[in-house]
Structure formats: C-alpha cells, structure tokens
C-alpha cells in the first residue's frame, strides 16, 4: 500500500471518531465560549451582545480563588487516598495467577456499575452520626460523641476517593508494564529484603502508573459534583458546585460558562504538566 492511500485509509478509520467528538465535544465547547461573552440580564435572560463583563466579574471575585484551592486540595487528597487504597489492590491483581483474577478485577471496578448518587447515599449510612463507623466505635467504647465524618471536608474526600478507586486500579494496572518479576528477583539476589525491593524497584518502576492514576483521579474529583454537594452537606464549596449554583440557582449562565472554561483550562494545564513529567522520566 502506498503512503498516500495508507493515509486515506487512516482518515476513513478515524472519521467517525472525529465526527463524534466534533458533535459531542467541540460544538458544545464553542457554544460555551459564545455564552461566556454574552451579557447576563437579571432574571436569567441573556442578551447576545459581546462583553467581557463576565470575565471581569470572575477575576474580581476572590471567592473563585478559594473555590480553586478547595477543588484542587480535595482532588489531591481524594486521589492520594484512592492511590493508597488502590495500589495494593492493583499490584495484587497484576501479579496474581489465580483463576479468579478476572472476577476479582470486576469486583474491584464494580463501584463503577453503581450510580454515583447511590454510592454517596451509601456513605451517608456508613459515615453518619448513627452510621456503621460511629455506631461501631461507640459500641467498642472508643468514643462518647460521634466523629464528624460527614457533611464536612472529610466526608467529601472519603466519598470521592471511594469512587476513584476503580479508575486508579485500572490506571495502575495499565501502568505496571515495566514491572518484571525477574527484575525484582535480581534485586533479591543482590541482597534487598522485601521492603527495600518494594521501595527501590517496585515503586519507582510503577511511577508511570501512579502518575496516570493520579491524573485521572484528579480530573474526576475536580469535575465531581454529587459527592461534594451531598457529602459536603452544602458547606463545602468547590468549582463544580459553584458552576451548578450559577447555572441552576442564580441563573447566571454566562458566568457559569466562564467558570467552566476556567476549570477546563486548569485541567488542560495539569495534563500538559503530566505529559512533561512522563516525557522526562521516559
């Protein structure tokens, strides 16, 4: 096949995906851009005149800085927590030769089968003042008053992290390609005990997977709305809840569009940083 006709074939294969992305992603995004420069009128009406007022309003409000900080901090904490929980699971699933491996993998990603709303209500039952954890601790005599595990920062991080674990596990497993039992065996023959083997070989070699898992975890947490909204009890404000608020409560669609574009920019920057980081280490 000539290079030219090969290129044609490639174009034809890619065409459906390109069309789909153009329709489902690029057009709405352009619309969002359009919306962000229109004038917002009281009562939620929009006048189609070009203005930068929405951007000015966004930049002059320091509350947005706090929202950014909250969003990022929650995303970092939830991703780290999910990594902490997901890493052993992923490593086990990657290494096991058990015939149950497939089933165990499905079990590990099963939270994805359940709607986010349902999962979050599950956490209400577990983390609430009379939930499993507080009830259990009380029964054991460890606490007199319930721990505040929900409707606060802690609740949001726990709830988000749980939802991230399947993503983290999948990302880690796909990033474990450089792990090789022979390499760890080599470290063992050179005198490394299991802990040092893990710290000097396994962990550094799984870095690509960890970075990928962190990136995915961060992006998913940033854009999560249900967990911060419900598990935060209306007291935790992040970019996603603010966008929802501007859209459906304050009816300020243009400002919501600006906030959405801002969040997109943050995630693009993060992805670029990830690319830089992985290119350097590769």
């Amino acid at each position, binding site marked *: 096949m000539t290079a030219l006709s090969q290129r044609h074939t490639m174009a034809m294969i890619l065409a459906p995906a390109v069309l789909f992305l153009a329709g489902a992603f690029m057009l709405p995004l352009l619309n969002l851009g359009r919306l962000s420069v229109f004038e917002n009128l009281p009562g939620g009406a929009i006048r189609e005149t070009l203005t930068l007022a929405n951007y000015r309003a966004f930049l002059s409000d320091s509350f947005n800085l706090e929202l950014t900080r909250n969003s990022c901090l929650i995303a970092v904490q939830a991703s780290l927590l999910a990594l902490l929980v997901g890493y052993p699971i992923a490593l086990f699933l990657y290494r096991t030769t058990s015939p149950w491996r497939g089933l165990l993998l499905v079990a590990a990603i099963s939270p994805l089968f359940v709607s986010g709303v349902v999962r979050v209500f599950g956490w209400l039952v577990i983390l609430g003042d009379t939930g499993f954890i507080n009830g259990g601790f009380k029964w054991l005599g460890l606490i007199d008053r319930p721990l505040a595990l929900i409707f606060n920062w802690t609740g949001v991080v726990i709830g988000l992290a749980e939802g991230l674990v399947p993503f983290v596990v999948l990302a880690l497993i796909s990033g474990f390609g450089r792990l090789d039992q*022979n390499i760890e065996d*080599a470290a063992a*023959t050179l*005198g490394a005990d299991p802990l*040092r083997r893990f710290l000097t070989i396994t962990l550094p070699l799984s870095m690509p997977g960890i970075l990928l898992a962190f990136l995915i975890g961060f992006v998913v947490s940033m854009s999560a709305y249900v967990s911060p909204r419900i598990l935060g009890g209306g007291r935790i404000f992040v970019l996603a809840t603010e966008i929802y608020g501007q859209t459906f409560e304050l009816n300020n669609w243009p400002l919501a569009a600006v906030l959405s574009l801002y969040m997109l920019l943050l995630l693009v920057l993060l992805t670029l940083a990830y690319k830089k980081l992985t290119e350097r280490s590769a």
Partner: protein
Amino acid sequence: MAFVEIRSLHVSYGKTQVVHGLSLDIERGEFLALLGPSGCGKTTVLRAISGLLQPSSGDIRVADTNVVGLPVHKRNMGYVFQNYALFPHMSVARNIAYGLSMRGLGSAESGKRVQDVLELVRMSTLSRRKPKQLSGGQQQRVALARALVIEPQLLLLDECLSNLDAKLREELRVEIRDIQKRTGVTTLFVTHDQTEAMTMCDRIAILDHGRIAQIGNPRDIYERPNSPFVARFIGRINEISGQSNGAGGISLDKTNIRLPGPVLRSGPVLIMLRPHRITINAVSPAAASDRLTGTIIRKTFIGNMAEIAVQTAVGVLVVEISAASADLDHHQQGDTVTLTWSAADMIVFEPEEAVP
C-alpha cells in the same frame, strides 16, 4: 568435601515434580555447566540454589552451611538472568552499586569497587548510560558485573548468552571464562547449548528429567558417554544395532561383519559411533565381505569440514571428514564407498530397558 553440596534435591511446581532427588558437588573455584534439553529442570535447580524457589526437600550446603532455610537476600549469590533483568530506572553504575548499597557499603568504597568491576568487564566508559541505551552484549556485561561486585560465594548464570547473536556469543564465551578464572568465583552455568558448556566450563553435568545423567569434563562426556541419552545429547552420533556374543565379540545386524568389543551380556546391543571416527574409502577391488559398504546419498559442506551421509546395510551413517582432506573432492553423491573404524571408537550399550 566439596564447596557446594547438593543432596537429594526435590522441587515441585504444584503437583508436578520437576527435580527428582538431584545430587551435585561443585568444587571451590570450579566452573560447572548444568547442561540439558529445555524443560529438563535446569533453571529450576538454579533458582532453588539461589533461594528464589523453595525446594520441597533436600539439602543445599555452601561452604558447609545449609542454605535452604535462608531467604534469597541473605544467600550472597550472584545471579545473571537470561534477560539480564537490569534495573531500567538506574544507570549502569547504580545498577552495579545496588548490591553494595544493600550491604551498607560507604560510597567511597562502593565507587572504587564499581570502577574495578567495570574495568573487569570492559564497560568503564559507559557507566552513566541507562540499560536501554546499551546493546545486548553490553547489558550482559553489566549484569555480570552487578553479580560479581558483591563478591558472591557462588555465581549462577542462567542461559545468559542465549539472547545474543552468534558472533557476540563466541566473544563473550571466552570473556566470561577468563573473568571466571581471574576472579576464581565458583560458578554454576545453566545452558542448553553444548558448545557453550564445552568451551567455557571445567566440568559438565548433564541433566535429564531432573536428575544428573552424567558429570565429568567435556572430553570424558563426549568420548565416554555413560548412556545413549548423553551420547545423543552431546554432539552427533551414529547408531547401529548389533549383537554381543557374550565374549567380547560384536556383530552388526543385517551384515556378517564381526568386530572386537567390550564383554557384555550376550544379546542385542546398541553401537554408537561419532561421525569423525569413521574413515571413508573408495571401494577397492580387495573389498571383502567383512567391510561395510554403502552409497553416498548426500554431501554437505560446513566450512571446516564436510558431512557425508552414506546409505549402508545397517542404515544411514554420517561421516565427517576434514575440509582440508583431499578425499573431499574424490567422494561424490552416488559413489560406492567402504566405511571403516577402529573397534575402540565404538561406544556400546546394552539396550535401554526403559525404552518400550
């Protein structure tokens, strides 16, 4: 008492027993090859010695200490893997220093030892490279250096030349043997390649189905195999069936040729004969009926020698003659020739009982 003593080693994977009561001695400073066809359990033996694998029973004593209970990281054995298993995220120097840092060696002492061993394997100029920036042969040298620098009490080489191309393999054979002699490290080399085993090692242990079939120096094993399995495994060999008369006389089946041979129980025997031990001659008018004659069916030129296949009454026999020999041009396909050999060159076995 030997430096390494392995006694009745049994290793199983699940229900499959791979090594069946293997016993083996390795002398201090010796370079011993563990040679066998693939699947004979040789890598398993190596892994059991290193501690990467737990034997189901048996003793492995090194310098009079039973190491079976010791975890792998406390055995102080250098192991060179077939795929080298270099640490991809570390430079050559850090790969080599790894074992030293695990031993808590200071950076000055460690640096010096890394330098020394890099010189030994002729890799000093590439110490800052990452493994994937190295060729296969260079990676092999680094793997060897990494295993040697810890001054192991035993060096274990696992098929470590089989991933290299032929030319490089020959170079490294010589080099590894030289390094082994210079360092004097007791070495066990697992391979399926008989040329490798013969050219590099002091002694060869032939492994068959998890047991040692024969152990000895390369010449002994080649000239005096103790079983048809070993004879067939090492080098090429012709097989002729015959009869022993029980008094040192051997006759070849389907002929009336009689030769002097070892005294064996009377009955069928298997006669084995190395191709280079057979002399090929044009049929002379004087050729008597007690000579084996045949027709050349194939002539293959292999560089320094030629291989001639002759169809005879006892089957096809392969003869090797030196390419320098003038006979090479005399014998052509279709020619009738006489084959002769010295009775002393025959290796005669009573038929294998296990074979149905």
